[in-house]
């Protein structure tokens, strides 16, 4: 077992990922060069669709971290952040991006050209504390950027009430007003409706893709989960819809022909929490023993179906739901989601990643573990690791 290892991809569409990722970052740099406003934002919220509808370029510093992990840049970024006084106990996403923007950003040899500097910062309160704090630090780092200080209700999915939605809609309107003022671009509501429709279509495709994972043998494993990159970065675009359609078609064909992602599927596993971005090869390690990770909690956060008849409200609801869906804000809902997935995907065992870089997803795992055992008789094992920092991952536990 190696401490850091890239995954082996077998799907034709997964093999296209390098191109898909490169094209996105190329587009970000082109936008900057052409004078299109570039805005940095946290993931899992409806701001992305607003940006695409207003022809603005969204950039996701949190998503840049897995890219850094894949390119082996994280140790250098951590060194910069920790040298500035950011504790090693803090989330790896936070330390990585903080180290990056104060270190190698703008340098000559940064893979994919790095990130273009932001003209806009969507500095939202809501989501997890590290996500919130990342943007507060970015405000400090990029003092010339226009800053939107958003405010989002922190509420469990099962407790969302009309006033939460009303406030989230109000915040979306505030964001539109801010973007209009900062960029001089007006939102075309017909264009927004189209973007939201495309976004919902991506989610529907993602649900369909996941449905093929129910097949035995599964035509896709977590080792290829990087395909969800388009769900993170390109929600609301035709590019996402086209790519996911290709993925869907490939999986459909494999499922119909009973072509498994491995030859001899013996065990079907569930993965809870964010994967080890520096060691996606871990999923292949299990596969050598005939065990395939066929479902995970993390991927669900990017697939929230929307009522496209009211685009703004739909985006507000999506924004409210995304983070609680996978975090300790809604332990009960998350537990039910895991149990449902384990039933539907015919899971034999669960791998619970106790993730030092992500308390919100790790908290509640003990309850999930117990429910799996008591309600479904599914055994599980806790893996101590960290989604970004390989110093917190010991191969000895295997």
């Amino acid at each position, binding site marked *: 077992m190696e401490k850091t290892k890239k995954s082996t991809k077998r799907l034709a569409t997964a093999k296209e990922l390098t191109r898909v990722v490169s094209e996105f970052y190329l587009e970000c740099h082109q936008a900057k060069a052409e004078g299109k406003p570039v805005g940095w934002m946290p993931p899992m919220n409806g701001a992305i669709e607003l940006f695409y509808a207003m022809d603005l370029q969204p950039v996701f510093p949190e998503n840049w971290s897995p890219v850094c992990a894949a390119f082996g840049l994280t140790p250098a970024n951590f060194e910069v952040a920790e040298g*500035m*006084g*950011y*504790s090693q*106990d*803090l*989330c790896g996403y*936070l330390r990585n991006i903080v180290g990056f923007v104060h270190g190698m950003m703008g340098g000559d040899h940064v893979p994919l050209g790095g990130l273009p500097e932001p003209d806009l910062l969507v500095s939202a*309160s*809501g989501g*997890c*504390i*590290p996500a919130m*704090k990342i943007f*507060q*630090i970015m*405000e*400090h780092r990029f003092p010339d950027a226009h800053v939107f*200080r958003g*405010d989002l*209700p*922190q*509420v*469990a999915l099962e*407790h969302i*009430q009309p*006033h*939460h939605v*009303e*406030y989230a809609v*109000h915040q979306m309107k505030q964001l539109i007003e801010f973007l209009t003022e900062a960029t001089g671009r007006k939102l075309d509501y017909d264009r927004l409706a189209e973007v939201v429709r495309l976004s919902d279509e991506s989610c529907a495709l993602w649900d369909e893709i996941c449905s093929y994972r129910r097949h035995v043998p599964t035509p896709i494993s977590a080792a290829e989960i990087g395909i969800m990159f388009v769900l993170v970065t390109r929600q609301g675009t035709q590019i996402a819809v086209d790519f996911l359609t290709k993925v869907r078609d490939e999986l459909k064909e494999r499922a119909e022909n009973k072509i498994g992602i491995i030859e001899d599927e013996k065990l079907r596993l569930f993965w809870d929490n964010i994967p080890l971005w520096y060691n996606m090869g871990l999923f292949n390690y299990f596969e050598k023993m005939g065990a395939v990770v066929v479902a995970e909690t993390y991927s669900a956060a990017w697939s929230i179906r929307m009522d496209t008849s009211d685009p703004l409200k739909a985006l507000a609801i999506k924004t409210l739901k995304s983070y609680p869906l996978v*975090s*300790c*804000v*809604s*332990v*009960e809902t998350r537990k039910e989601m895991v149990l449902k997935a384990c039933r539907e995907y015919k899971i034999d065992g669960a791998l619970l990643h*106790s993730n*030092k870089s992500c*308390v*919100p997803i*790790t*908290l*509640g*795992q*003990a*309850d999930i573990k117990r429910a799996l055992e008591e309600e479904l008789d599914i055994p599980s094992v806790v893996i101590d690791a960290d989604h970004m920092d390989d110093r917190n991952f010991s191969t000895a536990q295997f």
Partner: protein
Amino acid sequence: MSSLSDYVSEFTRALENPKELIDDISRSGKKVVGYFCTYTPVELIHAAGAVPVRISGGPMRIDRADRLAPSFLCPYMRTALERALAGDFENLFGLIQGYTCDVACGMFNVWKGNIPLSFYHILSLPYGESPEAKLFFEKELVNLADRLSDHDMEVSDAALEQSLDIYGEIRRIMQWLYEKRYDGELPLSAREFYTVIRGIQVLPPERTEELLAGMVSSLESNAGGDARNPGGTPILLSGSLVEDMDIFDLIERSGGRIAADDLCTGFRHFDPPAGDGRQPIYRLIERYVAHFPCPSRQRARHRAPLLIDLAHRSGARGVVFLIQKFCTPHLTDIPILGRELKEAGLPSLVIEMEETGVMEGQTATRLQGFFEMMGD
């Protein structure tokens, strides 16, 4: 007339055995509602006829809690869960939490799934102060009041008015005591002073008000004895909860004097004392949106001038960050805060606390070095 130390003793007793305290209040016929963070609107809970009691953790060895939560959480949340699993809170009626950080919110849900209480409620607080933010907060408060009334805990305007008055008075007295402390006129050690504050967070407010009124009389008649400013380098203590009272002695023994703080077992619990408004619910809203900020709810650049102001008002010449280990909000703010404080001429030192306290020898050496560096 009782002496100051008599009053402090009652606060000390209230903290010594959280279970006994809750059991006693429950036996008196009152419902006890626990809370973790000072963003929980205690006035509303009190107006519903219950006694709000801040959940205690305290330095201890962790055993049971590790089975339900990872070890990389703040000691407060781990030790509080440990107590809960040991049955210390079995007579608690419920738990209410104003949303602050990931851990407090997540642990609320872990409690909900594992500690059988009659009532659980978490409310979302706005980060902003716009009219829409306040309207949203009002709806959250009304929602909480409705849920309480479903459990025969009605909140009337008159009761809320009364609760706001009593908590406002307690906070005003505490701010007066802080002023005395800034001026070196409070004859209490740091341990005694912070014991009073933590005691306030667990005792019924009616009793707290009596005790504080007694302390004020005692001070005004000088029955508390002469102020005994212990000397030492004046510092501002910045952090969240401090339950390990030994650290206060350690700071003083090492040559420091805590001139001010922004702890949530300290100044942050009392500032501002109250809010203005024509109706009680607006008074409540105004108070909480103006809450002296916790880093989970505000940016470092906003907090820095507040800390610098506190330091200037109190004469503090440096800042000791006393942090619960793994506390993301505080740890994240420290690099920016530290730089801004330094630019304002305030050096800083970071000390992390674990569930069994701090490493005394090592911490004492660091503190002594820090105080010596600042000079007399």
